[in-house]
């Protein structure tokens, strides 16, 4: 769906080097479910025959990072001996949450900030800034609904106002606040829902007092294309975007100095009854494999899918293997 553009090609070389540095052989043909027996590597997942009686369905929302996370958890749980199916690409968080509640899926990865603002009506500025605080707040809310959440990933993702480096230099933009007095002349592009979301355009207007020349809704997949094309002065990006690491000289994000875009670490949401039934290996396995998910690693995995066009399944399998979780 996304056109492969020059930065993608340029970035590929750098990213391939990164991949090699990680010592990963991208496994093209995917019998990823031939899970490791855990005979080597200290951190390898150990398959527990008792888990074979438990069937789990791992879900995810509908964009690459989510699908990668869903695959990582699904493959790891399979390695731990569970009978695992995946049901990725579920759409928005509302759909995903509903799927957990109705038992269509056992669990899915959610950003703690999204859970708090979207599910539980917390204002963005009230979202705890630290990962642990946000996790505990979200878990408490989930608990009231018969759900629970496992502790957060090391990396966090947030919306960000992005622009071309040369635009930022020309206009002297470093923080989002620097847009004051200039935004009236600038166009902003973002996903269709951004327009009305308080953790997006609505928040920029309300908390920063910014007015833009115009806002244009576009497919998330086009968020860098519109900048490169010179159509958008500003575009809503994600802090985990691989393009930000691969093309530091081209794209920059403005510092969210008023904390309107809460950063969300990923927490795995599941039913309390499922967690009990699945036994201790459920949470243990998920926490074990997400330990390696730092911002750099997540960006690298996103790059494999978004820039190099690997499938989320391949990227997840490569991650699990290179980190020694599967054989």
């Amino acid at each position, binding site marked *: *769906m*996304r*056109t492969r*553009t020059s930065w993608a090609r340029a970035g590929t070389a750098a990213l391939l080097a990164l991949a090699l540095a990680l010592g990963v052989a991208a496994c093209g043909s995917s019998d990823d479910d031939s899970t490791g027996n855990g005979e080597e590597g200290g951190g390898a997942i150990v398959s527990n025959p008792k888990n074979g009686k438990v069937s789990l369905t791992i879900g995810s929302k509908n964009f690459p990072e989510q699908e990668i996370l869903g695959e990582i958890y699904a493959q790891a749980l399979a390695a731990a001996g569970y009978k695992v199916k995946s049901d990725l690409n579920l*759409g*928005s*968080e*509302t*759909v995903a*949450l*509903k799927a957990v*509640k*109705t038992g269509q899926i056992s669990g899915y990865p959610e950003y703690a900030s999204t859970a708090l*603002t*979207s*599910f*539980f*009506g917390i*204002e*963005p500025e009230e979202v705890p800034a630290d990962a642990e605080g946000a996790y505990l707040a979200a878990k408490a809310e989930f608990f*009231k*609904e*018969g759900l629970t959440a496992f502790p957060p990933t090391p990396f966090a993702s947030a919306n960000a106002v992005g622009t071309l480096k040369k635009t930022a230099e020309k206009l002297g933009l470093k923080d989002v606040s620097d847009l004051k007095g200039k935004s009236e002349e600038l166009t902003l*592009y973002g996903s*269709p*829902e951004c327009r*009305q*979301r*308080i*953790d997006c355009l*609505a*928040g920029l207007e*309300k908390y920063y007092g910014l007015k833009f020349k115009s806002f*244009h*809704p*576009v*497919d998330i*997949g*086009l968020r860098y*294309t*519109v900048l490169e*094309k010179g*159509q958008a002065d500003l575009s809503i990006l994600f802090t985990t975007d691989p393009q930000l690491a691969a093309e530091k000289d081209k794209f920059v994000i403005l510092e969210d100095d008023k904390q309107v875009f809460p950063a969300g670490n990923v927490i795995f949401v599941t039913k309390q009854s499922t967690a009990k039934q699945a036994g201790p290996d459920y949470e243990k396995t998920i926490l074990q494999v997400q330990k390696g998910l730092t911002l750099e690693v997540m960006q690298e995995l996103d790059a494999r899918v978004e820039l190099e066009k690997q499938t989320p399944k391949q990227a997840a399998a490569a991650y699990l293997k290179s980190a020694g979780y599967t054989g």
Partner: protein
Amino acid sequence: MPLAQLGAAPPLASFGGAVEFIFTPQTSNVTGGKTVGGFSQVVELTLTQLQVTVLALALALVVALPIGLYLGHRGIGEFFAIGLGNAGRAIPELALIALMAAAIGVGVLNLTIALAVLGVPPILTNAYVGVRQVDRATVDAARGMGMSGFEVLRRVEVPLAIPTLFAGIRGATIAIVATATIAPLAGVLTLGDFIINENVYGEDGVLAGAILVALLALALEFALAGLQRLFTSRGLKVSTA
């Protein structure tokens, strides 16, 4: 209040809720207190949807009609006219929009072209078939009366091809108006905004959007059926009645 919506058995969108959404602004979980939906937004988005539909249809007509009529009149290019009709239905719109975004950017122009691409095949194919299927004896008689090629097309072939021709235009219109729901992914806010952004508008909004698009499609279908009656020659009405 949001918690109530997350009750044990999550309710599906209700018809009543969708109707309410169309007429009265609703609260939303993610907007920080601003209401969404309601009649004024519905009118605004409906008009945009209508506008891009008309633009795309006009472009499709300008491109497809002359080619289809000409090929049909000359009786050439059957492979092209029919093949295009079949191949054209398989073009993924979103991919097309993304592809053109890199060349001409997103916005009304990109969208109009992408949607017109949907309209061209049925119009072209039906124009071709409609003209081709006119009884050869009638055409020969017209020539025998001394009509020029253009006169034959204008006064004999096109009038007789009207039902087939309009079937193509109506099909194209439905395809375009239905697909114009993806416009919010290309910089233009249409009724698709309600459908795509379930997070903002809720399930009632999604259903409301779908109902509105369906109603708009029906309205256009009726309008074109009326137009077709106007264009159909009296002799044809009698013979098909």
